């Protein structure tokens, strides 16, 4: 059998976890699929998992699981590994999915392949995983009594396969004090005053070093405001100290998924492209027609961002936007 650690929120399984279930189904190759859920709302979230092919949902019940505690969650996985002897354990390649599975891997000295996009059932287990934030793929074989893997979000389609409701089994994991040393002790909610969130924005305009200075972002700010979008930047800009790191689009910054991404004066290094490959349409504005971003964009304007961005804003105003 194959076990999937399912993250959930507000009583619903996360999309990335449903995608992990879809890949786990392929690994299971017809063998039963089990799920592990923990924390408030777990039972609610488990209700719909049968439709995704889950035969049994294990609900870990423990007061210490009310807030995120990665080692405790890894202990829950460890208990199920001991009890059920799964051939593989999967989770979403989210921050927490990767974290919890790495703890489980460390506890059991088991191999872990992070951010897989495909897998072929078998022993050893063959997977394809992403490197460089998705700019490169690696085919690999997993060896070991239990294979651990996470599934890169948005690379596998979740699918309902028409199964009946999953059986629910509750258990109380035995957790020691050491398992609870690392846990969230405080959650700070961010005020939403700061405008449109970069990760959720439907329109993003970014500038690279070509902006020339922190003040060089003013035309981009104006255009973003006009379209209810957000302003991003390249890593070169944050390293120069022109913008805060929270504005950085890239592999080590924010991953964006807007309807349109206007990338101005950005060369298109893999570091940057890893952060904007979720964009539906990319328009590159660059003075260099040979810039790598031109080969990875849908549309391009060859020109100076200092002239092009204000012209777009003026054209929008003419068309009556804003």
């Amino acid at each position: 059998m194959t076990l999937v650690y399912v993250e959930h929120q507000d009583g619903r399984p996360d999309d990335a976890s449903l995608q992990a279930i879809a890949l786990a189904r392929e690994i299971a190759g017809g063998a039963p699929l089990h799920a592990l859920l923990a924390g408030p709302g777990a039972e609610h979230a488990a209700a719909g998992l049968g439709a995704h092919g889950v035969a049994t949902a294990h609900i870990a019940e423990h007061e210490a699981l009310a807030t995120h505690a990665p080692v405790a969650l890894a202990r829950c996985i460890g208990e199920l590994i001991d009890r059920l002897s799964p051939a593989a354990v999967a989770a979403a390649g989210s921050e927490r999915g990767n974290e919890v599975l790495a703890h489980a891997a460390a506890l059991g000295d088991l191999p872990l392949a992070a951010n897989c996009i495909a897998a072929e059932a078998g022993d050893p287990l063959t997977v394809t995983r992403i490197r460089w934030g998705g700019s490169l793929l690696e085919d690999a074989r997993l060896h070991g009594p239990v294979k651990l893997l996470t599934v890169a979000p948005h690379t596998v389609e979740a699918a309902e396969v028409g199964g009946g409701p999953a059986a629910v089994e509750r258990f109380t994991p035995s957790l020691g004090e050491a398992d609870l040393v690392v846990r969230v002790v405080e959650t700070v909610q961010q005020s939403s005053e700061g405008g449109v969130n970069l990760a959720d924005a439907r329109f993003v305009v970014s500038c690279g070093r070509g902006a020339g200075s922190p003040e060089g972002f003013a035309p981009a700010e104006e255009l973003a405001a006009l379209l209810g979008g957000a302003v991003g930047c390249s890593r070169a800009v944050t390293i120069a100290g022109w913008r805060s790191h929270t504005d950085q689009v890239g592999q080590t910054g924010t991953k964006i998924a807007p309807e349109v991404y206007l990338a101005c004066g950005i060369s298109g290094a893999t570091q940057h492209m890893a952060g904007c490959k979720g964009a539906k349409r990319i328009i590159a504005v660059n003075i260099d027609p040979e810039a790598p971003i031109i080969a990875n964009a849908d549309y391009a304007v060859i020109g100076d961002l200092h002239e092009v961005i204000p012209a777009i804003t003026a054209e929008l105003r003419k068309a009556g936007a804003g």
Partner: protein
Amino acid sequence: MNILVCAKRVPMTGGTIVLTEDEQSIQTRHLGFTISPHEECGVEEAVRLIEANGGESVVLALGPSEAEEQLRDAMSLGIDRATLLETADEFDGQATAAAIVVAIEAERAAGVEFDLIFFGNESADSGNYQVGIRVAHALGRPCVTGVKGIVVQDGRARCEQETASGRDVYDVPLPAVVTVKEGLNLPRYPSVPGRLRAKRKPLATSAAVGRDPGVEKLRLRLPPGQGKQAEILGHGPEAAPAVVEVLRRAGLVA
């Protein structure tokens, strides 16, 4: 206090990745190398904490002999000494962690205990998301991951993670392992005197102790759909109406 930073040498890939003929690695003949971005912030944080609290900072890399370049870079920013675990092979997450644990235990045998061990949350190249966590378990220490804010006080580390809706806070006793993310701080640039001093700082090299990989790399390949070549909308400001048309088709303009 004593701080260890584990940092990885990675190529600066630029715009296009080219693979070697055997499909085992990236063609790096024309590329420069750097410390993986998250770990650059680990180096900076270690230097700041030692400046404020006193003690010793050490940087460790597992990689080829050329990784000395990145270790000297870290020392030019203020790290006191360096350890290179040398191997020409690419280790998987399990093997990397095991080799680093051997090195940390050797330090302990020599009387050096690290209050904090920094890792990057994940490396820029292989992105295994696990080395710091594995090392923490082997040493019996707590590990907070993805940290973008840290305050060390009274033998504890208060660590902050960024979430979709705000921040999550952890509070762990030292000694601890912390995996950090870019944005934790803004790393400084090396000064010329810093570069000169780095040349004379101690760097110890030993062979990395390997083990059979649990994740066995077969081959690397480029994802499909590369190089789609953009449709040119125009040149200069005259292209603005065509850009607005794309925005309109995307439903962003009425």
